[in-house]
């Protein structure tokens, strides 16, 4: 049996850089930092050592109706906003609902709803805890609301793998189409965890940047002065479609989602395996799955969160996988602008990777004033870079606490 090719026909996002894909992408190409001082007193009130984050650019209250805001956790709100855009972008295809699936992941789940419910219980008692609390906090809630939005009946899934969740969701969506379970899948990731408790917890694990005096410069992957990631929020959603389904309806095709590679480190709950064993395996599997010549790879959107250890392990893994081909690969670390969307990151960065190929331009990496001398890859700094004419392939890496590694390969003619 010939495997069904899977193409990307729709893109949607709401991010720290913009309320949709075009505004986010333009801000990315322009090298705009998304991190800003938070408009609250959490740092002072709770003695949290971080007072900034990459907060969402367009608040859901500006685009959703009040009942939608009240019935959905912010993580689901972001997902629904992004999914509506992606679906419209795909031309709102007419489809048999039993052939439409959804896979929408969150790394953390409905943490605002959970903690607000806890506050209500303690302050006002059980009768004031909202009946919608459970369907709002459950980690499959964003997937379910996207499923309901479009009446999808081929399955609604929420794969959870921390910061790899969004990419894993897209990988699973590819599998649903290849295996014949669906013709179209709305897939991606979302996160809304800019709440004082997760910030305090990430700060306690010493993974967040504490550059309070200059938030815009805090996310600086591969720079020698990097000191941790910047927490972001938002969602990225893509419409995946079997190539024949897309062709039959004359859909606009951005790129092909050609390869999926998944692995686990089997090593440590938070630290990546120091030799990049799992990362290398995921990238190799994705490239083999895509069945392309290694020399076609011209771009890589790195996981690169701006942590001291993680950035270099990934860079060494990339070199190991690509060898001398790495010298022709434009490396972009877009978290330097978006911050780290956790469960949304892998999906948003897949959108960036798809657009990079579609428009033949690799986005810049900002804040790298002094590149780590151990980085031997070709980092795109400050300005976007034109990619070659002809067929192109790109890799998007996503790794998560728990040792989850996901590599996706995107191609175009």
């Amino acid at each position, binding site marked *: 049996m010939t495997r069904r090719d899977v193409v990307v026909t729709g893109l949607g996002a709401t991010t720290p850089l913009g309320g949709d894909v075009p505004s986010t992408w333009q801000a990315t190409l322009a090298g705009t930092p998304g991190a800003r001082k938070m408009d609250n007193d959490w740092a002072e009130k709770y003695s949290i050592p971080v007072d900034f984050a990459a907060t969402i650019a367009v608040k859901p209250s500006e685009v959703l109706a*009040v*009942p*939608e805001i*009240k019935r959905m956790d912010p993580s689901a709100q972001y997902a629904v906003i992004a999914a509506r855009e992606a679906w419209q972008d795909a031309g709102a295809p007419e489809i048999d609902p039993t052939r439409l699936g959804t896979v929408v992941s969150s790394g953390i789940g409905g943490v605002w709803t959970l903690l607000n419910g806890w506050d209500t219980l303690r302050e006002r008692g059980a*009768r*004031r805890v909202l*009946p*919608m609390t459970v369907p709002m906090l459950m980690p499959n809630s964003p997937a379910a609301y996207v499923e309901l939005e479009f009446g999808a009946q081929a399955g609604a899934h929420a794969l959870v793998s921390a910061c790899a969740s969004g990419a894993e969701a897209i990988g699973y969506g590819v599998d649903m189409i290849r295996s014949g379970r669906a013709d179209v899948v709305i897939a991606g990731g979302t996160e809304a965890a800019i709440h004082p408790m997760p910030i305090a917890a990430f700060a306690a694990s010493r993974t967040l940047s504490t550059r309070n005096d200059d938030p815009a410069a805090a996310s600086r992957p591969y720079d020698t002065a990097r000191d941790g990631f910047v927490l972001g929020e938002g969602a990225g959603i893509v419409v995946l479609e079997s190539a024949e389904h897309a062709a039959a309806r004359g859909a606009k095709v951005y790129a092909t989602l050609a390869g999926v590679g998944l692995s686990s480190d089997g090593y440590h709950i938070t630290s990546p395996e120091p030799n990049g064993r799992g990362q290398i395996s995921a990238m190799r599997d994705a490239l083999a799955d895509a069945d392309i010549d290694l020399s076609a790879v011209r771009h890589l959107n790195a996981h690169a969160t701006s942590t001291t250890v993680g950035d270099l392990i990934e860079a060494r893994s990339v070199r190991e996988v690509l060898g001398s081909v790495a010298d022709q690969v434009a490396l972009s670390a877009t978290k330097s602008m978006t911050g780290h969307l956790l469960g949304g990151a892998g999906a948003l960065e897949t959108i960036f990777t798809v657009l990079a190929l579609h428009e033949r331009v690799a986005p810049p990496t900002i804040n790298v004033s002094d590149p780590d001398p151990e980085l031997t890859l070709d980092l795109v700094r400050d300005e976007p870079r034109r990619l070659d004419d002809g067929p192109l392939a790109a890799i998007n890496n996503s790794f998560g606490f728990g040792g989850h590694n996901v590599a996706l390969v995107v191609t175009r003619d």
Partner: protein
Amino acid sequence: MALNETEVLAGLTEIIVEETGIDAGDVALEKSFTDDLDIDSLSMMTIVAQAEDKFEVTIPDDEVKNLATVGDAVGFITKAQG
């Protein structure tokens, strides 16, 4: 100070509109929560919890099943304010 039925209806309408997105013009005393306004049980319990807050009354669970129409709820709340 206790509110009269018109004031309770206005306040309850606000809650229903915020919870469900129904047009305020569609909310009237004779409307059934389930048959006319298509309000499911989770939404109904949310509306009850918010009405308890807003009007400073208690609406026991046993009573909720007797509140078939908006008018039933307005009547109960108006009386319960004492």
